[in-house]
């Protein structure tokens, strides 16, 4: 009897109940901490959150019954925590400035939109391999999206980075959607050309370096990343796109030489950026010398103060001052958790992200087709790199670059894009865990003729 993955939908439901307890419990704790009473809209809020999560769960039961049972509960817990913290920071800001525009309600709307897209992806996309047909369409769309913020009239420059577009009342970060499209593009491209790229080149010091003529795609991606960096002043996205591309290239070709060549190219690019743009110099300077506090290092230092003030167990939700850190609800939401939930909470959150990445890579390992492997790997790496860059930045492990913390940060485009990423991962894992179709026993050599690749 061949090994068959269990569906584990019951386990998923149980974990979802726990995740809702975390999210709604955090919301109640914020109310108790700030006002001393349970929030009046607890039932509507809790009911809405529960409805969204149950809708997602039911969709999985119907459309992807073999999908990984852990991803949705993790995402539900993170999103619930994020909403509670954004609400908490809203309350803190409102106490200082009654005219402050609250963000939590619109974040809930974005979450609803995210879950809706999540459901649509699972319903419409019956098999992830269909995406391979959109390799070049996705790539073109991604390029257009990346260029949009540079278009006069709709592009906006916010806090030094030109990565926003404004259409009427809506503001949007197209780069967040572009990263999903780029994963599909890279996967489709690499599945076709991996053998060519994997041809042995020169061997230097135990490392196979690629041939010069195969450097084309990597050069193109390097130029695009640097373009994002120089024209949009967005170090974080630039690192994210290039890192994702390099890792997928490495996985597709199984040649670490690409990592070395690409890593060196990125170093060169980053150093050039440091020399040329003041924006990057300020960030690096604030990272190396945060004290005494300057305008450049104020935000990072406030985040560090908050985390230190939280200590091991935190001040308790609603009992710290996370609103003292500028832009606490988006980039600096992790220090807010550090302040109010302590090191314990921060480690738990980092572990949750670690689990998402682990589930994504596990899906890639058991996936039967190369395209699915590459997409799952790419999506997992996008989350890993994004979490590392943003959390490392706000905790002063690396220079600060503006990126959102997936599922926690306030910001609609990021939230929606991340829900789509999870839907894609669930779709691939459903395919991977589903028992293979039965074959006719009279033709036992059917399997052996199915081999497509020797690797």
């Amino acid at each position, binding site marked *: 009897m061949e090994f068959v993955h269990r569906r584990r939908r019951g386990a998923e439901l149980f974990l979802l109940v726990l995740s809702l307890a975390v999210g709604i419990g955090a919301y109640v704790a914020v109310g108790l901490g700030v006002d001393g009473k349970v929030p009046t809209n607890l039932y509507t809020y809790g009911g809405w959150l529960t409805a969204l999560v149950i809708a997602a769960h039911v969709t999985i039961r119907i459309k992807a019954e073999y999908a990984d049972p852990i991803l949705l509960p993790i995402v539900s817990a993170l999103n619930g925590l994020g909403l509670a913290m954004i609400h908490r920071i809203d309350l803190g800001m409102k106490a200082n400035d009654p005219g402050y525009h609250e963000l939590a309600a619109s974040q809930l709307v974005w979450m609803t939109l995210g879950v809706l897209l999540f459901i649509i992806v699972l319903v419409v996309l019956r098999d992830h391999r269909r995406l391979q047909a959109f390799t070049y369409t996705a790539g073109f769309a991604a390029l257009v999206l990346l260029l949009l913020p540079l278009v006069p009239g709709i592009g906006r420059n916010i806090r030094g980075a030109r990565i926003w577009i404004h259409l009427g009342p809506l503001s949007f970060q197209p780069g967040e959607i572009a990263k999903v499209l780029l994963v599909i593009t890279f996967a489709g491209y690499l599945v076709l050309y991996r053998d060519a790229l994997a041809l042995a080149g020169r061997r230097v010091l135990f490392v196979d370096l690629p041939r010069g003529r195969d450097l084309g795609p990597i050069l193109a991606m390097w130029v695009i990343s640097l373009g994002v960096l120089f024209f949009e002043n967005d170090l974080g996205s630039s690192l994210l796109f290039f890192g994702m591309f390099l890792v997928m290239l490495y*996985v597709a070709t199984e040649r670490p030489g690409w990592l070395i060549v690409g890593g060196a190219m990125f170093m060169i690019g980053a150093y050039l950026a440091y020399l040329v743009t003041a924006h990057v110099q300020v960030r690096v300077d604030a990272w190396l010398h945060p004290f005494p506090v300057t305008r450049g290092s104020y935000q990072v230092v406030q985040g560090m103060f908050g985390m230190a*003030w939280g200590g091991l167990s935190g001040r308790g939700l609603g009992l710290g001052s996370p609103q003292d850190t500028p832009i606490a609800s988006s980039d600096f939401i992790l220090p807010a958790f550090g302040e109010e939930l302590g090191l314990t909470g921060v480690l738990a959150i980092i572990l949750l992200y*670690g689990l998402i990445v682990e589930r994504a*890579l596990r899906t890639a390992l058991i996936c039967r087709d190369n395209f699915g492997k590459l997409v799952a790997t790419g999506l997992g790496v996008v989350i890993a790199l994004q979490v590392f860059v943003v959390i490392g930045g706000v905790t002063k492990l690396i220079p600060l670059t503006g990126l959102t913390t997936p599922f926690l940060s306030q910001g609609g485009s990021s939230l929606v894009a991340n829900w789509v990423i999870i839907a894609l991962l669930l779709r691939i894992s459903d395919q991977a865990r589903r028992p293979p179709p039965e074959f006719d026993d009279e033709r036992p050599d059917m399997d052996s003729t199915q081999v497509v690749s020797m690797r």
Partner: protein
Amino acid sequence: MNRPIRNLAVFCLLLFLALMANATYLQYFQAKNLTSLTKHSDNTRVADAAFAEPRGAIIVNGRAIARSTKSTDQYKYQRVYPFGSEYAHVAGYFSKGRLGGVESSENDVLTGDAAGLFVNRVLDTLGNQPPKGGDVVLTLNAAAQQAAYAGLQRLGKNTRGAVVAIEPATGKILAMVSSPTFDPTRLSSHNFTASSNYYSRLLKNTLAPLNNRAIEERLPPGSTFKLVTAAAALSSGKYNPESLVPGGATLDLPQSSSVVHNESRGSCGGTKITLTRALDVSCNVAFGTVGIALGGKALLDQAEKFGFNASKPYFTGLDDSLTSQVPSVFPTGLNAPNSALSAIGQYDVQATPLQMAMVAAGIANNGKVMKPQIISEIRSADLDVIKPVDSVPLNPSDPQAVSPEVARELTQMMVSVVDEGTGTTAQIPGVKVAGKTGTAQSAPSRPPYAWFVSFAPADNARVAVAVLIQDANVERNAISGSGLAAPIAKTVMEAVLNQK
């Protein structure tokens, strides 16, 4: 493709481990440093919390010079300073984002966060009591402090000067006053705009009222430095108090066209006078000659034994982010003419009032210089003594700056200064006082500094004092150690001696 995916998983694991390790470093290992108001007084989170809890008191002679009282404004407690400006530079101030003095250096104790108060903190929490900070008891003597403060205030509000009094046997600071001063209550107001405005006005004031001149200002010690030169001379064995030294009107400096004059522009009372007489009249020619004879190295060694050129600050009682204690300096590698100038406390010699008080205290304590200290003990809110502070020599491996015999001879010479020399204004009826005046030239264009160092009673000293008047609103020719500084030193010594 599975092998690279597995490698990638390991790589991602490392990334996440790095994040976790860094968060742990920040929130556990660095937390104490980052939430210390002493090091990061701009940490508003900690400062806000500090306003919500009562701090311990700072106590001098059983009375609080800083304490927390219930407040009715947005915070629960207000810091008050019952003695106003008198203890301003020592007690410091406690404002949002800014702390000074003991309020800053002993912040851990006052908030109750110090390691020694941990058990009390836990008991408070278990007993559902509000946490209480510990008290800091200072070594200061209220009468001496009052006398020093009054003495400087009498010279005018804008007088720049400082007074330090030390108990020679223990190194305990009995008085520490700096002028001009400020009002700590105004700085600690909960009206943060007002306290901020006051703070920036104090910062802009060219007289630098926030500076504790007793430890933050170093100036040429002038003739008071002749005590160190005399100590080096007697310790060398080449001189005794009766040795004859040149006492003429001028000293031609070797390798140079410069000439050293006496302060009086006349002779010191003969071409050859005794070393005692030279100190009595503060003879520049005599001590310049001695300085050349001893050489720069001998002077340097002697000065360092008293605490000059310390590699790190030896007075840790007031260390915080705003107070920067300056070390006193004696130049190295001196040639003959500069040795002569350094021997009379000019050229590049610079000392803080605290340093000159330690020179006097060292001589008074049989040549043994004690480490100065201002914290007498740390107490919990229930009055248990958590940490008594012991007296230790400044330099434990070599505690004697001079031998007891040399100290005795120097004391005799200093008594002579007060009895029949330049220091007669410091005489106290019925008490033998030892002292030395100084009137240091800074530049010809500006008035000299007046110094006086002394101790009493001479044979069993209970107090050593250094007074520096940097400038006061008086005529230039009225500025002298004996005229301005010595009377203040006298009242401080009397204040200590009149007790018990």
